[in-house]
């Protein structure tokens, strides 16, 4: 059986930021997945969702789960990423002070996603938003 969920992400809405990821986490828990996978997927979803909110784009976070695996995708119409390799470097950030006061913008978001996903793809162009695809294997 396939489970598909989708949530909107609003630019600069720091109050509701993370709600989509929390819902995804609850869905994965209800589906009875193992704890380690739930943690890793939740971290990836949350970091990706926060990125959209922080960098000022509107977007969508979605998940699709079936017996072959879990896919979480985040798409936004924000400013996009100029240099993806640089953005994947730990500690590199373009986030402002407002974001850093909330405990984010330390340049750890994308590296955390790379570390916690099984397969990670990122597509982005400056001025054209970003599309993150995170895949997770499910142990049989």
């Amino acid at each position, binding site marked *: 059986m396939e489970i598909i969920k989708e949530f909107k992400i609003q630019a600069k809405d720091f109050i509701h930021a*993370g709600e989509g990821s929390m819902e995804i986490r609850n869905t994965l828990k209800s589906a009875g997945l193992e704890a380690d996978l739930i943690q*890793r997927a*939740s971290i990836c979803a949350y970091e990706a969702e926060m990125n959209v909110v922080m960098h000022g784009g509107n977007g969508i976070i979605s998940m699709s789960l079936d017996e072959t695996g879990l896919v979480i995708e985040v798409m936004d119409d924000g400013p996009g990423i100029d240099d993806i390799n640089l953005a994947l470097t730990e500690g590199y950030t373009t986030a402002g002070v407002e974001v850093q006061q909330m405990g984010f913008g330390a340049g750890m978001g994308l590296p*955390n996603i790379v570390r916690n996903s099984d397969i990670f793809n990122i597509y982005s162009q400056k001025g054209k938003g970003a599309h993150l695809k995170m895949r997770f294997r499910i142990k049989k």
Partner: protein
Amino acid sequence: MKLSDVKMILKAEVISGDDKLDIEVKGGAASDLMSDLLNKSKEGALLLTGLTSIHAINTAVIGGMVAVVFVRGKKPDKAIVSHARKHKMPVLSTRFNMYQSCGRLYGKGLKSIEWNS
């Protein structure tokens, strides 16, 4: 150790989650930078932070942590407390600073969740 032990060691006030003091705490994690905590799963950990933002609660939930302790006498506002209640995340506040809080807990046997040492 149990969350009730944490409360005693840190002479902490329980802001929400009075009914969850018998939860088992497997280790500790401390940071004001949420992304530093989200490097990997912190399943079963206690979160010590000086960041009284809704994202401290979110980070604890997302990371699989069992409770949040705000250090340096910081108290979260009502919106954060109700957010924590909604997500069943116990919240405590201690007058000790971060260094003292970690030291007190470590000295009583609560090790780092990450390295287990």
